């Protein structure tokens, strides 16, 4: 197992390098210039100076290698310095956002909590709802719970979040006025009142994203359970005198969870990347919003960095999913 993990990590290095080149190159090809963000009142020679200082005019490979060094060497140093109070970085140049002129990683760290709270909660809620529904609808196939679950899943999975988001806002925020339509990022939780306010404003975005994710996970759970419920070993368990609870929740669920866990693990990078659309709809100031903002502003370092972090997470969670597969299924051994 350890050798397998090490080998996979080793293979991940060229993969990620290739991804980084592609990302850097594609983003670089995009039309527009960071200069467009500088107000027109700024004299041309000052404008040139600003661009010069941002390193925009350097050739592609120089910018790429510099960014690579900053990403893998300088930024980790700053992280270590920050965590342990050391000074390894010694003021080395960090990855700087074109538009805000502050280090990209500072912005990401700032935005991350919003994304994790809302999108992370939505994902957790989705899993908690999806698993019981998936298990029950498979066990009682074609019952009204199953029919309802199938219908809601179809709607949840096929209707895009920008649509469900707006519909929920129109119904619950505009017409009924139960929930706010805009997420207030500045809210600090200090007492019960503000905690309630936080929960209150999270409900709509969590519902939108939760529905979408729960739809997918419950469908996978249901089909995986169905596949396993008809297996011979289920009959064996019943013939041994095991109760239905043990048969379904232990024997069948344990087998059915193998592919479901993989789906859940592979969906997690999406949480970190931020559900871009939902953040836009509810004006949540998270990573997804930061990425959209950076794209509009031609803020190449920001776009490249966030995209590349997402790529790293996808590669990592693929590995985690494979490892979980090996842990959950004794027939799979990575030697």
């Amino acid at each position: 197992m350890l050798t397998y993990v090490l080998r996979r990590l080793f293979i991940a290095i060229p993969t990620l390098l290739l991804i980084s080149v592609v990302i850097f190159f594609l983003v670089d090809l995009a039309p527009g210039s960071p200069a467009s963000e500088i107000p027109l009142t700024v004299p041309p020679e000052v404008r040139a100076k600003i661009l010069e200082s941002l390193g925009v005019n350097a050739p592609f490979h120089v910018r790429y290698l510099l960014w690579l060094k900053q990403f893998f060497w300088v930024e980790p140093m700053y992280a270590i310095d920050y965590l342990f109070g050391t000074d390894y970085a010694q003021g080395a140049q960090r990855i700087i956002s074109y538009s805000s002129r502050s280090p990209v990683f500072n912005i990401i760290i700032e935005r991350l909590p919003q994304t994790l709270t809302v999108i992370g909660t939505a994902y957790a809620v989705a899993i908690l709802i999806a698993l019981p529904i998936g298990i029950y609808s498979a066990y009682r196939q074609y019952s009204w719970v199953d029919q309802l679950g199938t219908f809601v899943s179809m709607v949840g999975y096929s209707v895009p979040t920008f649509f469900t988001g707006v519909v929920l806002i129109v119904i619950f925020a505009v017409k009924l006025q139960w929930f706010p339509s805009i997420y207030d990022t500045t809210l600090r939780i200090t007492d019960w009142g503000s905690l309630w306010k936080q929960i209150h404003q999270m409900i709509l975005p969590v519902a939108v994203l939760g529905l979408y994710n729960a739809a997918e996970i419950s469908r996978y759970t249901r089909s995986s359970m169905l596949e396993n419920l008809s297996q011979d070993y289920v009959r064996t368990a019943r013939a041994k005198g095991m109760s239905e609870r043990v048969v379904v929740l232990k024997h069948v669920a344990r087998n059915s969870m193998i592919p479901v866990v993989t789906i859940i693990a592979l969906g997690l990078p999406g949480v970190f990347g931020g559900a871009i659309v939902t953040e836009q709809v509810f004006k949540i100031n998270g990573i997804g919003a930061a990425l959209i903002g950076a794209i509009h502003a031609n803020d190449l370092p920001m776009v490249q960095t966030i995209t590349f972090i997402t790529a790293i997470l996808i590669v990592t969670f693929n590995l985690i999913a494979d490892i979980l597969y090996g842990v959950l299924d004794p027939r799979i051994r990575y030697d």
Partner: protein
Amino acid sequence: MPNGAKPVLQVRGLKTVFRTRTGEVHAVNNVSFHLQRGELLGVVGESGSGKSVTMMSLLRLLPAPPAEIRAGEVLLNGRDLLQMGADELRDVRGGKVGFVFQDPMTSLNPVFTVGMQITEALRKHMGLSKAAAETRAVELLQLVGIPDARKRLKAFPHQFSGGMRQRVMIAIALACDPDVLIADEPTTALDVTIQAQILELVKELRAKLGMAIIWITHDLGVIAGIADRVMVMYGGQVVEQAPVRELFANPQHPYTRALLKTIPKISGEREARLKVIEGQPPMLSAAPSACPFRERCEYRHDRCNAENPLRRAVDGREVGQGHDVACHWQAPAPAARETAHA
């Protein structure tokens, strides 16, 4: 074989129906039989004859819907399994009645250790502690001839061969000292050498533990080797029932006779082709009002189309006790016929 003693299992008038989209399938029709303590009853018949469905119906193991047990009683030590509550029935399953299924490759749960799958039943039915259950599981694995038993408890099913897995299945079925062991084609999925080993094992275990066994198979050779009594099924009905020697020496039903003729002979001149019974088993879509075998029967006459034959005694004893057959046709006296090769 002790006759006259109270049977451990008594089945009367069992009727199982599957409700499907295209209508009902009458899989088991008015099946009655009994099983004495320590007896080995062989159940033979081709695929779709209702052997497995009958045995699964006894423990209500068929998924309902679509399966529905319409009528009958299944008395185990005098108590009707068909009337029992779910909790009581679960005590019988795996406790009083052990079940071994056909395909050992799929009948064990792939993600749990063999030890867990044996101890699970022990802990439920016998209330053993984890340690005690493990000790008993080791004994069971040794009993069914699995070497290095204590170490093998921690192994997963995929680490066993097919024959070894079937031994594990037998160990699970035997775990709680059942009164009855139902083996549903336990050797069909195995190759002949392993099949012989499993047969030897069952004979040995039966001598050692003395439980009653129902052995379902479509292999008459297997039946000849181990059974005390044989029940031949066709079209969801019992068509003939007799002690094993009597059945092979004096088959009464045209189906039984045809079955015996299909066994290829090893000695003597080789026949050009293997013998087959022409035609297909019947679709059991309606409650039978005629003999189910009539389409394929060489002795068919008018009565066979009009009336489903009841079981009648052949040797003067009560139906079920000696030799009985469900057929309108009278077989000629035994001496006049060639006897089948057992």
